[in-house]
């Protein structure tokens, strides 16, 4: 769980890597190719590019959602960054009852292509955690053993009803798009699906960064983040890239991929940054450099493509002119239709690539980008090139293009990385229009460079996209409304396209997907587990300024264990002792259990209100329910769920509830307002892999605020479609909803209520007996006396246990060896009861000093004289003086009398007004007159 905290702790900022690649004016969306995720405290940023596999922030820290990034776009206002994804599910996310359909033990890193179209594929880009490596494993092949933990494998698809053989085509569209030139070239060596995993998996995080255009350290960081932060929905470039790489590799290189080859490739990739730097150095201005780089890259790609794929040659040529577009198209087609063909092509390409890389830094850059982000690129190209083909392709492309380009630029500027960072904020500050102009300029330059492609110019959107590519990603964040519009349109298109394309390409992708599965899985499981112990510590650091861990020092001497029967009884009678079972609450237990279980199984949400006077076992019963549900979940009888507990008494302010819930869910520490919005987002945004959250709210009444927004939210969240939240609330009063809640809150709480009756004496007796099951320390009658007494007074089990505990103490101290039995008897219990229940007033009056007693008497005398229950001190003083004279005591001064009065007031035998009033203060009795007279008479 705790693994992914980093994300939560560390603030992440998400920025578009470059300008929007295209704009959908109808929807006012701007589409992007890649996004930069900056993690606070890490020098290097992660770049997420289209087509990559990403981890998306989910409920489960250990198992963030896996998805493939299809589109990036921003909304009209440019603020919200959205991403279109194709979901993948983990085995644990498959409903419990359907898991058997798999018919085999799932590989721990296995994921399934999620083909349920009803699932919302749009996510908030800022929930993307990082990229992840996913590999496709063909159905008949075993899962690679040497896969690293971070790598996930895809073998099958899951459409919520059956597991099907996963068609690798699903993964292809992106691959084609992304890796058109380089993939083909590089992939051949890797092609064997089995071989590919090893390089990817463990190193993926490490290696992937290399593959990515962004400098290695950034990638590394991202990878780390990825391991830590399952939640983020935002797409991290690294993970995606990795996955893309993997996919591309797999798809391209089905035939045979030697690990060595892949290793080499990585080596190249790693070397890229340096190359990029060189490029940068050579390039005068950033924009220029970018353009140049792009141009070079494009050229390289074209060349590679041309050279690599003989069968495609026709298409390749086409590609050359429009560069991106044409290339992509042919490739896609190839990929879809001719998988076998690709493989042969790829080897050649790979060889070429290697050469290119070594010789030309630019190419190397391109390759890397191609591997990761290039795949994405092709799609936009397609769009540009052939508007007919469908917006889908275009969309897919545009984002990828942007990303890849941005990545490239970045990599090239790695030396100046810091500068970039500095620049980026400035750029962001700049108005969107200005950017746009810049972008246009850039695009025009690009066009000039790429004069070959006339088709491009036709597409305005494409131009925009290009522009965006060249502009630093950070600018993109603030992208103009126009861009956003475009992006939306594109994204819509993308969605449809992506689905179609995947299905179409099905045959190809399987390998890649399987690999990707493996990669995604592995990262989660192993790293998460490993990280888990470490991360919990790390999250704490932000909490307290000095990384303080809340710990009470340990004792120097070991605690003594109970030595005799009475001590043992005392230990088991302590309220804190957790009994094996909760007797006398079977019905309530069953009701709550059924309620929660049904909600967990259905994946729905709901509220329940539990009331009862203190000490009737409300919280204990709920805990017991959760314990047994968790056992059931461990045995896989019901789906896994999370249990979170907050207590209204244990927070300083009702709004802290948000903070505590969020902290327990994600270990994030934020302000109440922010926490509320995060929770709101979390519970209202759809995510197919969410597990049910069971939230126990103890002492509900203390969360009451004037606007009741805390209560409202608590009860409103479960009603959300995607929340999967079960809220159990506990309070003391039965009619709390009616009394303190306004209608809309009470209505949401619903009518699922349960009331815990105070224990009857038989139940209390049973409770004590069950706690004492082994130990015989009490006489039967004594137990009955206690339980009857307590049942008559309050029915509070705590009281009952405390009395019994006290009785054992009394028994122990008074234990005469003669009395023999050593059991706690009636006398001891009686004494304990007396101590706890008897009023002390009478004894206090008896023990009071003479003057105090006289004063009390004077008060009563004055009351009788006045016929009221209230008198001023002056009046009482007169009586007091008279009584003193009668008793033969010397007269007391007013000051003395006042002191006496104040003393009686301090111990609340009298109720006295503030002493500021002096002799005019009013006096009342806090005890009945009869009690006073009784006490004084007995004296």
């Amino acid at each position, binding site marked *: 769980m705790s693994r992914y905290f980093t994300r939560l702790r560390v603030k992440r900022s998400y920025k578009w890597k470059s300008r929007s690649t295209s704009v959908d004016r109808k929807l006012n969306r701007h589409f992007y190719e890649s996004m930069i995720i900056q993690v606070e405290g890490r020098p290097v940023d992660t770049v997420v590019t289209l087509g990559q596999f990403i981890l998306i922030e989910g409920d489960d820290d250990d198992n963030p959602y896996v998805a493939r990034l299809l589109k990036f776009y921003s909304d009209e206002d440019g603020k919200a960054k959205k991403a279109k994804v194709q979901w993948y599910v983990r085995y644990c996310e498959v409903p419990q009852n359907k898991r058997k359909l798999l018919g085999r033990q799932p590989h721990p890193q296995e994921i399934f292509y999620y083909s349920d179209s009803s699932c919302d594929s749009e996510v908030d880009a800022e929930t993307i955690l990082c990229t992840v490596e996913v590999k496709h494993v063909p159905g008949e092949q075993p899962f690679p053993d040497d896969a690293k933990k971070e790598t996930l494998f895809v073998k099958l698809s899951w459409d919520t009803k059956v597991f099907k053989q996963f068609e690798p085509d699903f993964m292809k569209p992106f691959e084609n798009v992304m890796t058109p030139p380089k993939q083909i070239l590089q992939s051949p060596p890797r092609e064997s699906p089995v071989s590919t995993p090893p390089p990817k998996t463990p190193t993926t995080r490490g290696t992937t960064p290399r593959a990515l255009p962004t400098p290695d350290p950034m990638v590394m960081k991202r990878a780390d983040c990825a391991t830590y932060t399952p939640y983020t929905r935002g797409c991290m470039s690294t993970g995606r890239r990795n996955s893309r790489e993997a996919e591309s590799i797999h798809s391209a290189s089905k035939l045979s991929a030697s690990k060595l080859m892949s290793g080499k490739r990585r080596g190249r990739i790693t070397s890229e940054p340096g190359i990029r730097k060189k490029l940068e150095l050579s390039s005068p201005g950033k924009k220029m450099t970018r353009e140049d780089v792009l141009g070079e890259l494009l050229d390289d790609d074209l060349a590679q493509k041309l050279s690599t794929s003989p069968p495609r040659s026709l298409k390749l040529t086409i590609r050359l002119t429009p560069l991106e577009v044409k290339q992509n198209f042919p490739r896609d087609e190839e990929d879809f239709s001719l998988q076998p063909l690709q493989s042969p092509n790829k080897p050649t390409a790979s060889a070429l690539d290697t050469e290119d890389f070594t010789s030309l830094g630019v190419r190397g850059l391109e390759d890397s980008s191609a591997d990761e982000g290039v795949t994405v690129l092709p799609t936009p190209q397609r769009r540009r090139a052939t508007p007919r083909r469908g917006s889908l392709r275009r969309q897919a492309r545009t984002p990828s293009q942007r990303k890849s380009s941005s990545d490239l630029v970045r990599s090239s500027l790695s030396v100046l990385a810091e500068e970039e960072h500095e620049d980026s904020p400035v750029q962001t500050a700049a108005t969107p229009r200005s950017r746009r102009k810049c972008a246009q300029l850039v695009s025009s330059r690009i066009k000039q460079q790429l004069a070959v492609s006339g088709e491009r110019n036709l597409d305005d959107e494409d131009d925009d996209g290009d522009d965006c590519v060249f502009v630093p990603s950070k600018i993109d964040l603030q992208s103009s409304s126009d861009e956003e519009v475009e992006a939306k349109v594109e994204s819509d298109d993308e969605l449809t396209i992506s689905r179609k394309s995947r299905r179409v390409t099905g045959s190809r992708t399987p390998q890649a997907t399987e690999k990707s599965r493996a990669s995604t899985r592995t990262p989660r499981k192993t790293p998460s587990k490993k990280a888990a112990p470490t991360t919990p510590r790390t999250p704490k650091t932000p909490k307290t300024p000095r990384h303080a861990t809340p710990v*009470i020092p340990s004792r120097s001497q*070991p605690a003594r264990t109970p030595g005799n029967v009475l001590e043992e009884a005392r230990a088991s009678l302590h309220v*804190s002792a957790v009994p094996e079972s909760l007797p006398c609450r079977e019905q309530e237990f069953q009701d709550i259990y059924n309620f929660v279980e049904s909600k967990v199984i259905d994946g729905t949400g709901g509220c329940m209100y539990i009331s009862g*006077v203190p000490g009737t076992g409300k919280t204990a019963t709920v805990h017991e329910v959760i314990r047994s549900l968790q056992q059931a979940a461990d045995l896989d009888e019901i789906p896994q769920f999370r249990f979170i507990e907050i207590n209204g008494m*244990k927070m300083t302010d009702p709004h*802290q509830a948000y903070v505590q819930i969020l902290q327990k869910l994600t270990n994030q520490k934020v302000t109440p307002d922010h926490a509320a919005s995060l929770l709101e987002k979390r519970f209202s945004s759809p995510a197919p892999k969410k597990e049910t959250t069971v939230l126990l709210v103890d002492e509900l009444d203390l969360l009451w605020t004037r606007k009741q927004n805390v209560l409202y939210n608590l009860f409103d969240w479960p009603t959300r479609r995607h929340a999967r939240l079960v809220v159990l609330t506990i309070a003391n009063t039965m009619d709390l909803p009616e009394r303190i809640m306004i209608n809309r809150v009470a209505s949401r709480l619903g009518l699922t209520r349960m009331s815990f009756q105070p224990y009857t004496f038989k139940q209390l007796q049973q409770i004590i007996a069950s706690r004492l099951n082994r130990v015989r320390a009490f006489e039967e009658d004594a137990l009955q006396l206690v339980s009857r007494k307590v049942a008559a007074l309050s029915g509070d089990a705590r009281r009952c246990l405390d009395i019994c505990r006290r009785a054992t103490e009394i028994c122990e101290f008074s234990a005469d060896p003669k009395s023999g039995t050593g059991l706690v008897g009636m006398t001891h219990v009686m004494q304990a009861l007396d101590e*706890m229940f008897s009023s002390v007033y009478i004894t*206090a009056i008896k023990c009071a000093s003479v003057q105090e007693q006289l004063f009390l008497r004077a008060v009563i005398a004055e009351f009788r004289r006045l016929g009221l229950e209230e008198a001023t001190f002056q009046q009482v003083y007169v009586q007091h003086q008279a009584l003193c004279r009668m008793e033969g005591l010397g007269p007391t001064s*007013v000051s003395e009398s006042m002191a006496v009065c104040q003393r009686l007031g301090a111990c609340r035998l009298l109720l006295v007004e503030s002493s500021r009033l002096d002799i005019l203060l009013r006096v009342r009795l806090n005890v009945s007159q009869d009690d006073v007279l009784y006490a004084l008479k007995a004296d």
Partner: protein
Amino acid sequence: MSKRKSRDSHMTVGQCVSQAQKILRQRFCHQEVSTSPVGLECQHKHLLELLRRTAVHGESNSVLIVGPRGTGKTMLLNYVLKELQEEKDVKSNIMLVHLNGLLQTDDRIALKEITRQLNLENVVGDKVFGSFAENLAFLLEALKKGDRSSSRPVIFVLDEFDLFAHHKNQTLLYNLLDVSQSAQAPVSVVGLTCRLDVLELLEKRVKSRFSHRQIHLLGSLSFSQYLETAASQLSLPPDFPDAKFANEWNTSVKKLCEDKSVEGVLRKHFEGSKDFRSLHTLLLLALSRVTVSNPVIRPGNLLEAGRCSSADSKANILHGVSILELCLIIAMKHLNDIYEGEPFNFQMVHNEFKKFISRKSHSIHNFEKPVVIKAFEHLQQLELIRPVEASSAKIQKDYQLMKLVLDHTQVMEAVQRYPQCPTDVRQWASSAFA
């Protein structure tokens, strides 16, 4: 004296006296625990066993020590804690947290203080970091992480426990008591209060979590015990440097306590209250009379101290007022008699005073009205009279309703004791028509 000095430990009488005064003052003012508490054996045993179980077995407990002021609650607790600290297997095993409801007036301060005293990790030097919410979460987390067998027991001492019950939501009490009733770090919550009805202050869920153990200290000691305590409090310890002086002192104390008049003073004091603290003030007054020329406490000293402590504060103030002011007070007294305690204003008082002047113009100077007003205002400043309503802005000063905050007896006594009080005034005081 010089002989004694030379014979014994080379201390002059002056040194001995100041030394003795120092020791006794320390005893009286610091409430030092010297001997086991008198008459509290049962309570002592109960508390000791309770805290020992926490320290040794890690059993969580909560207990309230209830009793009127000055009955020795804190002394008992301190004595028990001292005893516990002396036990080998307990000494380094417990952590103490002292809180006082008068100092930690809200939970935020209290939490910081707890964190500071526990020296948790968010404490640097004397500073505690983090907000209120963070501190609470941190402390609870710390306590939750502990368990019975491994963490060091914490004893929370809450002085003026009733004041903690007035904190918002009783959050602190709830949490402390909740910890004491759940399987977390072992804690003992010891509350000290003088309010007998303290349990009624607790909210029901807080109350349910309290174990309902109460140790009552009601000051049930008899006069002879009281006398003994007074004697033992006055006597010097055996390790006093000048043995001879100590001997003489102790014999004189013994004699003093046997003196009838002294016994009378002490008995009166005892009847007033059994509070040891007030006894200490009494003895302290007597002790301050001890000088080099008067190296022991004499009965006269104690009698004077008794008179001082039982003196009426108002009478002393009246002793210093001017004759005009005294006359005004007498006028007010008559008005009180006439109108049965109804409030009066300056005009009424002035009329009454003028009537007196017109009858007995020779006995007292006829003051101008502004002078009388000034005197009236002075009385108000002395708080011998107080306005009925606080909002005096709208009403003219002359007509603002006032009440006399003096009893008849106090007025009469003041008039009797007033130096060189004109006879007419005296007569007027006793009768309005004199």
